[in-house]
């Protein structure tokens, strides 16, 4: 069985190489048969990798502990779903998942475009398959998922397997890694199209139009992955945080930031024919950051709480990145003349300019995060001393950046293309500004002035909410007045007419909600107490009384549980039961926190341990204001993104606002 698996991977590798060579030579020699054979090779690669993945999953589920991978990541007592998720629980398996996803994406791309873009497609196939070849080199020759343990060879029973870390046996962790991977891998496709368009010297936006949906879906996957990780950290790790600026977290954030910048700046290209080079740079950057993120999580180059192994694959990633970036850079520089801007920036107060600032700030944030993440590596190389920077550094830079972005989120969509008059600015922003200032004044009176950032953040959230609401309000009112239907059906009609615009507003609203949640963190309260059953303590306006301490045991783990009665004033509001477990097979303790989730604040209890005399429980109690809005924000963002994917009812032509003369001069491609 393991031989068939390893053979499939090896064959897939050969066919991927063939697909690259076949497509390129077929294209250059104008031999359509060779091109088609290259495309068929893509399908075959997908089939072979599906076979390999299927075999690995089968071994994990049946518990074939001769396999090193199965022994290390599966366990007979685990529920079947976690046996399945062990597919990506370790290094080799997750690389196989990467490869399989890329093969799947490639097969879909090749199939859906089999009659379109005959010019560009061979190159797209070649770029996709080159990337896949790289990952197949890793799993075919460096880290095979089908390695057999020597001890298991003579039918010596290898035991039950070491199992999946109990901390990871949680529902969001089942889908968090594949979601992130769907995001990571997905950006290969727009990148491949961008390169195809560069290589074939296409001056237009064909690659952007074709990959728009693709980019949005991928972006949604990545957002989902990041948020699931946050939700998991919050509910499982016991410290109530959802983001710690850990290198692995940063690795998932970096491509998300550049992808967000890309989603915005492509509008400049579609509408005005501007920023063509920049879009190439952004999509390439996103792709390489995805590879870089995989490298960071998979090679152990920077130490991280996510604690993946030190591994020998780091240098392969460095080679791939170096060659890839050099080739891309050469391509962009060489094709510069096909990427000339068709319009010029006319005013600092314009939609164009707001897009540029949005991009500038996003990319600056990306650089800051990257710099901070790699600081230990850089400082060691330069000074010989390993120095790290942590959360305070990242917060210090990214909080102002976040606030700046929030401001642009409010301003950008309402400001006119080309240039805005003072009059129109007044009209658009007078009431939103008033609303924001009133809210800030009110909050300041209630003592929020001690946290200036939080005050500004709430003000900006109000500002953006007001501008978005006014957009919906104005549009729906106009439709309602014309057709006589109610405001809500009008709002739906309005959204349906231009899903991109109004879906985008919904996404912005989701981000506003998340910001509200993140801002709430400025007001977190916590206390650590050692309490005997019967004792009580105070946190904020909650009175917490420990009523009971129980313990017990089952096949899988021993447990201790606290019953804590929470009350506010004279009113009892419920009993929370934080618990501790100790897993027998893995010898690992876990905390089962108890959370009372409400829209205004969460009450969060962690049973941290028992005092040495075994009489008193150590409890860490937290109040997290507004944290639920982070999760609500995610759902709004997801719905908004899906709305963007619905075709608009009114076919928009996206007429370019051309500036005569200038546009012509710049649009001309000199061969």
């Amino acid at each position, binding site marked *: 069985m393991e031989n068939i698996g390893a053979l499939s991977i090896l064959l897939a590798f050969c066919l991927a190489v063939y697909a690259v060579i076949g497509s390129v030579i077929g294209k250059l020699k104008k031999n359509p048969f060779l091109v088609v054979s290259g495309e068929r090779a893509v399908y075959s690669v997908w089939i072979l990798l599906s076979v390999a993945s299927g075999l690995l999953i089968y071994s994990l589920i049946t518990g074939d502990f001769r396999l090193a991978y199965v022994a290390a990541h599966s366990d007979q007592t685990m529920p079947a779903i976690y046996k399945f998720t062990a597919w990506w629980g370790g290094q080799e398996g997750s690389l196989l998942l990467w490869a399989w996803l890329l093969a799947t994406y490639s097969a879909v791309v090749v199939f859906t475009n089999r009659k379109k873009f005959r010019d560009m497609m061979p190159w797209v196939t070649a770029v996709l398959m080159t990337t896949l070849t790289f990952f197949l080199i890793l799993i075919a020759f460096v880290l095979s998922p089908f390695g057999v343990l020597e001890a298991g060879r003579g039918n010596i029973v290898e035991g039950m397997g070491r199992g999946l870390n109990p901390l990871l046996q949680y529902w969001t962790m089942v889908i968090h890694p594949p979601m992130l991977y769907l995001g990571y891998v997905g950006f290969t496709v727009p990148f491949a199209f961008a390169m195809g368009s560069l290589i074939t010297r296409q001056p237009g936006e064909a690659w952007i139009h074709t990959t728009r949906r693709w980019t949005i879906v991928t972006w949604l996957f990545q957002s989902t992955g990041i948020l699931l990780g946050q939700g998991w950290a919050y509910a499982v790790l*016991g410290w109530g945080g959802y983001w710690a600026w850990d290198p692995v977290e940063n690795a998932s954030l970096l491509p998300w930031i550049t992808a967000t910048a890309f989603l915005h700046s492509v509008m400049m290209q579609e509408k005005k024919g501007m920023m063509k080079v920049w879009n190439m740079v952004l999509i390439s950057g996103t792709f390489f950051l995805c590879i870089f993120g995989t490298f960071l999580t998979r090679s152990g180059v920077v130490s991280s709480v996510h604690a993946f192994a030190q591994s020998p694959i780091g240098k392969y990633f460095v080679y791939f990145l170096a060659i890839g970036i050099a080739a891309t850079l050469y391509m962009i520089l060489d094709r510069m003349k096909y990427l000339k801007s068709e319009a010029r920036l006319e005013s600092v107060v314009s939609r164009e300019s707001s897009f540029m600032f949005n991009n500038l700030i996003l990319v600056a944030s990306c650089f800051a995060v990257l710099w901070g993440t790699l600081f230990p590596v850089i400082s060691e190389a330069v000074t010989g001393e390993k120095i790290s920077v942590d959360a305070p550094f990242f917060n210090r830079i990214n909080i102002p950046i976040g606030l700046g972005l929030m401001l642009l989120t409010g301003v950008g969509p309402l400001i006119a293309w080309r240039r805005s008059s003072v009059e129109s600015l007044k009209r658009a922003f007078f009431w939103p500004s008033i609303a924001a200032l009133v809210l800030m004044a009110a909050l300041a009176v209630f003592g929020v002035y001690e946290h200036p950032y939080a005050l500004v953040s709430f003000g900006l959230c109000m500002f953006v909410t007001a501008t978005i609401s006014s957009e919906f309000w104005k549009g729906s009112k106009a439709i309602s007045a014309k057709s006589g239907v109610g405001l809500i059906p009008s709002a739906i009609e309005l959204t349906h007419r231009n899903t991109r615009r109004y879906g985008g507003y919904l996404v912005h609203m989701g981000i506003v909600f998340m910001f509200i949640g993140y801002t709430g963190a400025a007001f977190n309260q916590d206390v650590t107490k050692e309490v005997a059953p019967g004792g009580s303590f105070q946190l904020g306006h909650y009175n917490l009384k420990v009523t009971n301490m129980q313990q017990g045991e089952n096949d899988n783990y021993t447990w201790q549980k606290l019953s804590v009665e929470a009350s506010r004033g004279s009113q009892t509001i419920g009993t929370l039961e934080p618990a501790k477990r100790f897993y027998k097979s893995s010898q690992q303790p876990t905390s089962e926190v108890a959370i009372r989730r409400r829209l205004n604040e969460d009450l969060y209890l962690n049973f941290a341990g028992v005092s040495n005399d075994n009489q008193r429980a150590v409890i860490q109690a937290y109040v997290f204001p507004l944290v639920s809005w982070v999760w609500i924000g995610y759902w709004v963002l997801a719905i908004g993104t899906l709305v963007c994917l619905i075709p608009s009812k009114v076919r928009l032509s996206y007429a370019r606002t051309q500036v005569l003369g200038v546009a012509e001069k710049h649009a001309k491609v000199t061969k």
Partner: protein
Amino acid sequence: MKTYAKFGALVAVILGVLAWLTLGGISESKTYFKTITEVKQMGDKAQTQRLRVDGYVVPGSIVRNGAEVSFIMHQNPAMRAADTVRMKVVYRGIDPLPDTFKDDAQAMADGKLGADGTFQASKIQAKCASKYEAKPQMKTDANRAGM
């Protein structure tokens, strides 16, 4: 061209502010990675710089005392309790200790060295040695056997 000049000026201001924040942020939160031996050789400097010390928890040394947790860290994972390169760590931070923090776990303590020679940690990270992946060495052996 005036537009571009204005635009450029704004860009310069934004980048300037961010650069200033970056530099300030680095000097404020930089932490030096040290081993236990290195900390001992640093002398007084260890009491002023923020350090991150890497080591392994000596079995049986974890003591909880109210909100305070103390334990002993040693340097060489193979020697366990026999390792003489040791350092006492006291943790008084607000975040709960990670579940992976237990005997023999690999721990990273962030903080400063106290005047009495105990390490005053404000943050502890831990990985549970046995649970994560084996050393690459073992891996390649397993691969060779499989091919």
